[in-house]
């Protein structure tokens, strides 16, 4: 619908005289504070979650050498087991962590943990009222999202929001509400690379008209106020102006052409019934979204906790019926090995994605795309249902300041991971902690600061990890 010229008058100053609408980037119209940032390098964040933990055999178990998830050895002289050897080419671009976990939920059953992996919140016990807080990716998206068409990409194999303490998404907004995750490759592709329909334009136009009206109300109210009260009202006026600017920006994106992407190589109708290809397709979509700068923030929950979702099928890629069951059968013959084979596959696909980024030069920048992307992978359980000693890997982002090539063991009293190994019954996850661990949010705060977010705290942490 063509907007009558008269209603544009007030907004002319936002466009600047004579600037064409086809400009792809918003920096020209962004806050004065960002005026010089057009050429600053991009920073990206991608977070991945594996449910149900990883193989944690005790040292005396014969499968310890090959199939323990954590590497053997020390800070720089560590050796990868068969679970992680597929990541060997990326050794100097990765950091493995042990001894980190979220303090609020160390005695919570592991299957409830997907909800707080990126938030660190105390999501309560069964039946309790549910409260969560903003997730790591959304904090960064608030900062980086205005540069791109999509503030962030939220994906999961199972799709939707899931239920409280059984999440199907890693991302939570500022009010602690889950952001629904996409899980169908075709829909994701269309959202990123196919022009949006007329409804978006309509809704934005409605918003603009409504905001004009509010501005008028505020002006007419202002006349009847004392000077002091006018200052109070100024906050309202300022809020309207800022909202208008956001709506204006969103509306401009509608006129900007979507990036042209060749979909020939992609099988957009793939489902988790074909798990390896499904995973690869999802990773590829994230890759394309990053490459075209459609977004700089992505989360992908590989699977929901506790099985009972289609994500359980992922284990079929390596010949098993269901993924969740593998974490329960570690005491069976070859139990750790089978579980390890599955985790190896997961690490392999992750490595493939990271390598793809590594092999792609950074558009408009120096180095490769991996250098500018922080890839974070992990689970919120180590051994069976145990919400401690999370298995975590951080990759990429060398140009963001990550050192890498390290195996960092935090906490004290569990340096060889034995206190969190060999557990296969429910009494294990609720026991007392005779060792200490550091808050995972310390790492998150470190990541945020390296990603350029000016903040002194996240998820209750105010300290960073200087070794990272």
């Amino acid at each position: 619908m063509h907007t009558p010229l008269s209603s544009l008058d007030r907004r002319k100053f936002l466009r600047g005289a004579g600037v064409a609408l086809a400009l792809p980037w918003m920096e020209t119209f962004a806050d004065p504070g960002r005026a010089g940032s057009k050429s600053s390098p991009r920073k990206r964040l991608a977070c991945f979650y594996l449910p149900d933990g990883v193989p944690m055999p005790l040292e005396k178990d014969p499968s310890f050498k090959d199939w323990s998830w954590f590497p053997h050895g020390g800070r720089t002289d560590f050796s990868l087991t068969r679970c992680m050897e597929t990541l060997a080419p990326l050794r100097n671009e990765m950091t493995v962590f042990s001894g980190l976990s979220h303090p609020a939920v160390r005695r919570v059953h592991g299957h409830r943990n997907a909800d707080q992996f990126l938030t660190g919140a105390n999501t309560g016990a069964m039946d309790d009222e549910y409260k969560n807080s903003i997730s790591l990716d959304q904090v960064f998206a608030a900062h980086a999202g205005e540069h791109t068409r999509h503030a962030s990409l939220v994906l999961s194999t199972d799709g939707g929001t899931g239920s409280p303490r059984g999440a199907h998404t890693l991302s939570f907004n500022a009010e602690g509400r889950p952001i629904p995750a996409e899980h169908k490759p075709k829909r994701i592709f269309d959202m990123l690379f196919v022009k949006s329909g007329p409804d978006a334009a309509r809704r934005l136009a409605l918003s603009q008209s409504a905001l004009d009206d509010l501005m008028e109300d505020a002006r007419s109210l202002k006349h009847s106020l004392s000077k002091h009260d006018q200052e109070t009202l100024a906050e309202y006026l300022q809020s309207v102006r800022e909202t208008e600017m956001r709506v204006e920006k969103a509306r401009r994106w509608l006129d900007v052409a979507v990036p042209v992407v060749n979909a020939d190589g992609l099988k957009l109708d793939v489902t988790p019934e074909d798990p390896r290809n499904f995973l690869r397709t999802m990773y590829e979509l994230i890759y394309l979204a990053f490459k075209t700068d459609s977004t700089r923030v992505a989360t992908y929950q590989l699977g929901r906790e506790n099985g009972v979702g289609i994500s359980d099928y992922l284990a079929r890629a390596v010949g098993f019926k269901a993924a969740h069951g593998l974490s329960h059968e570690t005491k069976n013959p070859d139990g750790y090995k089978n579980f390890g084979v599955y985790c190896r596959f997961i690490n392999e696909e992750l490595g493939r994605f990271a390598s793809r980024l590594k092999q792609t030069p950074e558009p408009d920048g120096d180095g490769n795309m991996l250098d500018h992307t922080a890839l974070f992978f992990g689970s919120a359980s180590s051994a069976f249902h145990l919400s401690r000693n999370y298995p975590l890997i951080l990759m990429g982002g060398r140009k963001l300041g990550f050192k890498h090539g390290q195996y960092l063991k935090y906490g004290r009293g569990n340096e060889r991971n034995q206190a969190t190994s060999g557990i296969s019954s429910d009494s294990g996850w609720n026991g007392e902690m005779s060792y200490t661990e550091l808050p995972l949010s310390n790492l998150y705060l470190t990541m945020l600061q390296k990603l350029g977010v000016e903040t002194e705290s996240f998820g209750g942490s105010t300290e960073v990890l200087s070794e990272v």
Partner: protein
Amino acid sequence: MKNAVLVMLVAYLLNPFSWADVTDIPRANLETYRERVEPVLKAACFECHGPKKQKGSFRIDTLDSDLLTGSDVSWWLEVFEVISNGEMPPEDAEARLTDEAKAQVVDWLSSEIQLASQVRRSQQGHTSFRRMTRYEYNYSMQDLLGLQIDFSRDLPPETSSEDGFKNSSEMLQMTVGQLMQYRTQARRAMELATVRGNQPKPVYYGISMRDFTERFDSGYAASVARTGKRIREEGFTLENALEEEEEKYRKRPGGTHFRNLLTGQGVGARWSYPGAKYAWTPTRERPDIPDVMQDVVVLAPNKKFIVDVGNGLPDTGNMRVRIRAARLADDDERGQYQPTVRLYFGNQPSNDSRLSVKVGGDIVIDAPPGTPRFYQWDVPLSEVPRNAFRHSHKLGQLPNPAEFLSLLNTSSVPVSLVIDYIEIIAPALDHWPPESHTRIFFPSKETADQRRYAGEVLRRFMERAWRRPVSEDEVGQKLQLYDRLRPRCADFQEAMIEVVASVLSSPKFLYLGRTVERGEGSQRITDLELASRLSFFLWSSVPDVELLAVARRGALSEAAILERQTRRMLADPKVGRFARHYTRQWLGMEELDFLKFDAKAHGRVDPLLVESMKQEPVAFFSEILRLNRPILDFVHSDYALLNDRLAKHYGLPEVFGSELREVSLSSEGRRGGLLGQAGLLAMNSNGKDSNPLKRGIWLLDNLLNDPPPPPPPVVPEIDLADPEILKLTLKQRMEDHRDDPACSSCHSKIDPWGIAFENFDALGRWRDQIGGAPVDASSMLFNKEELRGIKGVKDYLLANRQDQFARALTHKMASYALGRPITFSDRSEVDRITVELRERGGGLADLVLLIVKSDLFQLN
């Protein structure tokens, strides 16, 4: 009288310092500085921080000693810090500070700093113009639209002002995020209030316990029939039947169970989520309600009964849950107990993911055994957590898409209830279109001309929402918005929803109060402004139709009518909002929401007891207001508002039922008044033990409006590892701690009050001993008066501090009523109101009326 006050106020506004004794603006205490403090500083500090040397680039001799108007306050704060923590003078300096000298400096500095902050706040002017608070917004939306929905849940919480009030103009800001929230909520409200098309066909669940039991025990009906026959024909008695049952099961089922009341046969109730095996399916036709049956479910105290409703409930609309229930006739017949039952709603999609939230308050089941009747709750389905899988998954699949209702017997005494039939209707609509819709889209002759009708609808809505008549221009402006939106909207209603949502996002809705240019002198506020001020004071919401009409006629400012309207509002149930929000803010009760009791020290504390503890002060205030009891009842009363749990907690004679009601107290003075209320004592503890310091501060600040100065930045810790210190009682430790001269000046004024509460533990229970030794709750005030325990405090307050208490309450209530801090220039009015209150016998409702009639309230 009023004119005189007006003249005084105008005079003050023109010349702030001309009425020193009336307005009593404090001045900096320069005499004490010159006589006592400066000599100390000269001796101890000028050497290194004076004309000859300026260590650390700091000179103390040139600081402006007037903290109230001077510009060196931040330097003085530094000085305060380093002297009180002993950093200065440094160890190796020649100069020394004696204990006495240190106390002089610290004393003077701490009171000057506190005074300075008050003065500076005062000088910021006294405007009432402010945004609505979260709770005011919520009630206003609810009252305007006629919907019982929480509109404020995503709005950020308010900060309290120094006075403790959330509706204080200086603290209420507006940000982009909030504006977006208001717009979202306004649209959401409009979507919920209005409807489209025909009345949606409801779904019905009609569940008899007989059918329910059949699911657990398919032979149940037959076996009941057999036993029934034996009873009727063979003289088999119920006793015999029960004996047989007990024999069969070894014991009477203690958990929730089904039972036939005639034959005594029963089977335990159970529920689990996988496969949604226990789910009921709804029907499109309302099942006939059967006659009362003898097959019931029995719920004992603290036991739940889960009814799985599958995934058949609609997404929105009102769900009406009806239970036909009665008290269970028990062996020891205690006719005076009546069970209470509460409703929960939830779902369990998978093993570790389950949610169950309270959606219906306690209902008292007063039907006697054998004559059950229906009780019901109304639950807005759009407002409760729903199962995210209910549309995407089928019953039987995992994650489980089913939802359930859960009934909990919340009685605190052993009395059970029985239910024989449950009916659920969703959506349950008493009218179509619902009242909330026709309130906005009222019937009119003009509906054919859409734009004209739009104008009518808007004018009426705007006048109610903005609390005043609207001009042609204002309606015209909204109609212009309508014109712009209409072509882009599918229909008239959609466009109207957007425009009305705009009316509710406008600052003309969100902001209250208005002031005139300073210097113009005080003016009487208009009747419409008075109506708003009155309704936000007593109802935390927009004026109702009657109040607005009176104001529009210009009649509200007439004394008799104003009084009548005020009394009407005091008698309206909405005054409960005043009781709740004022009491909670006045007494600082938010702390109680965050309190966690130490499990090791106190075991598991009944959450229903904690709920009662939170309700007690509010109910107490409500009662005093309703009956216009003297405000001194807050200090001590010979009655309390109690329920069963509180009476038990206090060790008082048994009370029946969970409703709070007035109970007479004996005269020993422990309870009665605010000082002995468990919730207030508990929040002034640390979860494990009492905290005399917190209690002392609370009393001084909240009840006497005489807060102590804030502590210095560095407070030395009590060394609890020192064995000598461990041996002392808490009182002795505090005395020992207090001896440090840097601390004693303030603490000698705080601690004695708090020590007097030592007979109350961290839960507010009475104790005569602590760790084996008798409690010593006696202390000495700084003026050498002795306080002996709680009774001593009450006696002392009633004998010496009545005026102070009355003035404090007046001050605080006026601040709440005006929505701004009380400044020095208001003091005279506050004093006048206090005097008049005392002359009238000092009832709480009298205070409200005096405030409403005062110039404070009626002038801007």
